């Protein structure tokens, strides 16, 4: 035993005798995780959250969350002598006088954009591979909650500097609150402590932004990860991989090294962006003044779709019993997002109702093998993308010399027509890919080698594929549609006829697939 081993052993023993950690550590440090690049997408979100906590703490040392009026006397000349809020002045102070302040502000903002983008790609991975199925429905709902809170948290951060863009955003948020019928104006007065903009809002959202929401985030992220730990990670199907095992590498040392390294890479990319690319140049926007607004006032991208929906809404209004109902804000600002996020949260239950599948699933689906789900996902993304495009309609119009009206009409029509088209095309592509898989299993790989037969005919030589690949292409199950009869065994109409009809139709659409090759098919082929 070398001296170093002796010292390490003594220290480990000392800790173990007092905490009893050795047994727990031994079990958990060897926990196995499957390996695939798409399983690292969630880590991007976790690491950017840590970056947000660190850089955000730095910013709070100098940020003054107050709408008290001050006269600017800092080093940025074009604003000297102007009246502004202490919040805006202190953000300028962080940007121009605090050493590293500008870099930290930019890292914080870029990390927020990466945090949200990472959530979306992680969500896409979980959705398209069916990782949300039993037993992971709760974790899916927690994820949807994190996404929703992320949008709110990001928007509050965007509002804190109290520059012209922030104030414009808060003004629109106030309009959306006011659009709630009857209670809207009371809620807005409650949130702002009086009329807009008042002096109460920024101190309030500051507390929510740095204390309440980060606390909820920490709690939800902890539960999210504990559930992954407890339920074990899903894995791609392959030889030797079943619903009862996990094939991969142990946490220690392989994943410790990978995850640790990936954290530094995420930090590096964020710091790189913060160092080379300007984000939210608040000094150019100037202090907020309700009488001013800039062309091209947009929210950050994760709210861009919401802005796009509001921008494309036709000017509808109803005047009822002394109240104005602004449908043009209410529908795109509250009703549609409400439907979208509720549908997203409930999706695992909806799918399980359609398929009637109540079993546990730890093996992932290849997206092509579940055409309906994949097509629905692409359809939703198309909807969001059209809305997002309309959120930047003015920038798109000036950049590509288009008319803003054309872009808006494209979005208005496109948001209704394009998602169904995307659904049909995606479903067809999925079925074609299934057909290609079937061909590959039955007839093997095309080698590109041409063979001339004695009688002059040319044929291409096909090589059989590896057993591993054949397994991968045929491991999925193809469940038939639910057999839901309109009448029961005694010939009596079943209750809930309409519901059953809907479920039957959806189940049939869901079960549509290209039959995967069976053992018999393969045997038959061998006879040729």
């Amino acid at each position, binding site marked *: 035993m070398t001296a170093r081993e002796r010292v390490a052993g003594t220290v480990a023993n000392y800790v173990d005798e007092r905490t009893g950690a050795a047994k727990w550590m031994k079990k958990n440090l060897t926990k196995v995780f499957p390996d695939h690049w798409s399983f690292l997408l969630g880590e991007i979100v976790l690491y950017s959250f840590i970056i947000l906590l660190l850089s955000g703490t730095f910013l709070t040392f100098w940020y003054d969350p107050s709408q008290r009026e001050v006269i600017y006397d800092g080093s940025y000349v074009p604003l000297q002598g102007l009246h502004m809020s202490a919040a805006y002045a202190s953000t300028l102070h962080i940007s121009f006088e605090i050493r590293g302040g500008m870099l930290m502000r930019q890292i914080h903002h870029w990390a927020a954009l990466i945090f949200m983008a990472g959530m979306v790609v992680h969500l896409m991975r979980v959705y398209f591979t069916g990782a949300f199925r039993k037993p992971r429905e709760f974790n899916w709902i927690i994820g949807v909650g994190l996404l929703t809170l992320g949008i709110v948290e990001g928007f509050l951060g965007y509002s804190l500097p109290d520059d012209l*863009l922030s104030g414009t955003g808060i003004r629109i948020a106030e309009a959306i609150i006011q659009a709630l019928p009857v209670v809207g104006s009371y809620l807005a007065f409650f949130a702002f402590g009086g009329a807009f903009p008042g002096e109460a809002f920024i101190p309030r959202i500051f507390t929510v932004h740095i204390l309440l929401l980060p606390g909820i985030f920490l709690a939800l992220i902890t539960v999210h990860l504990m559930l992954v730990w407890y339920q074990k990670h899903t894995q791609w199907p392959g030889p030797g991989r079943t619903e009862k095992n996990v094939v991969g590498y142990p946490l220690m040392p392989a994943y410790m090294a990978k995850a640790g390294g*990936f954290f530094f890479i995420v930090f590096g*990319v964020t710091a790189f962006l913060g160092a080379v690319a300007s984000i939210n140049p608040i000094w150019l926007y100037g202090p907020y003044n309700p009488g001013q607004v800039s062309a091209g006032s947009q929210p950050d991208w994760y709210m861009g779709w919401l802005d796009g929906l509001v921008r494309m809404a036709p000017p509808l209004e109803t005047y009822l019993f002394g109240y104005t109902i602004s449908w043009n804000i209410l529908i795109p600002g509250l009703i549609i997002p409400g439907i979208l996020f509720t549908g997203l949260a409930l999706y695992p239950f909806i799918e399980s109702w359609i398929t009637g599948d109540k079993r546990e699933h730890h093996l992932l689906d290849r997206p092509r093998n579940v055409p309906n789900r994949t097509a629905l996902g692409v359809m939703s993304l198309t909807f969001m993308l059209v809305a997002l495009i309309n959120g930047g309609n003015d920038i798109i*119009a000036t950049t590509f010399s288009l008319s803003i009206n*054309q872009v808006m009409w494209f979005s208005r029509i496109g948001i209704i027509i394009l998602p169904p088209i995307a659904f049909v095309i995606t479903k067809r592509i999925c079925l074609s890919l299934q057909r290609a898989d079937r061909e590959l299993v039955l007839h093997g790989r095309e080698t590109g080698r041409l063979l001339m037969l004695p009688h002059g005919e040319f044929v291409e030589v096909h090589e059989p594929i590896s057993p591993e690949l054949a397994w991968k292409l045929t491991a999925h199950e193809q469940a038939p549609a639910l057999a839901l009869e309109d009448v029961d065994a005694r010939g009596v109409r079943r209750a809930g006829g309409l519901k059953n009809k809907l479920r039957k139709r959806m189940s049939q659409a869901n079960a549509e697939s290209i039959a995967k090759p069976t053992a018999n098919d393969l045997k038959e082929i061998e006879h040729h």
Partner: protein
Amino acid sequence: MRKISKLRRSAFASPLLLVLALFAIGTTFSVASATTKSELSVEQRSAQIAEGKNIFLKGCSSCHGLNLEGSAIAPSLVGVGAASVDFQVGTGRMPVADLSQQIARKEPIYNEAQTAALAAYVASTSLGPEIPNESMLNYERDGNTAEGGTLFRTNCAMCHNFAGQGGALTQGKYAPSVMGVEPKHIYEAMITGPQAMPVFADKTITPAEKLSIIKWIKAAENEPQLGGAALGRVGPVTEGLLVWTLGLGLLIGVAVWLATKAR
């Protein structure tokens, strides 16, 4: 000595002194108030107007009419003043290249002398806003950057964007970028209101405030890219685009690399 005192009491003394005093005051005033502007003589001026008329008849009258009365596709030029002509021709917007939604800025077709001649001709036919001269455009001396920024954000940013980068208007029209525009042309745009732009008369925005706006625009134009690449200074759209392309592109690339190396 006697001679001088005798002269002083002479009957002609008072009128003579009065004449001398008036002459001195007049000379002092004319020297003091003399401008550096190179005034053209009457002959030069009428020659310039004649040249302007000549250019107008060849290059402009087919749309604006032989007597500046305008037509179905072009407005009347009666009362537009020299400032309008100097802005439209000096920034290359006129003569127009294509009659699309908006007349775009391009390389000027007429040189400075020809532009001045055209402006003189149009101004000779009716009264209108004049071209601001050098002494009226000393924005470095008479402007205030911070006040200019506030005025710009209040009156201009809603179309030209917070950093003067321009923005979209309805039906394909747009507010152009104000970066790299001559101070004279910015001033003229404010007093004449070209195309979709409103007129900011001297009662709305005083000449001193106009100079403040110009000073702020020039400061924004010359501001170094604080905080890194400016990404067009158009707000969060380009930032979102960068995060989805470069940011997520790099991170997903690394994730693929991390998962591949393990095999």
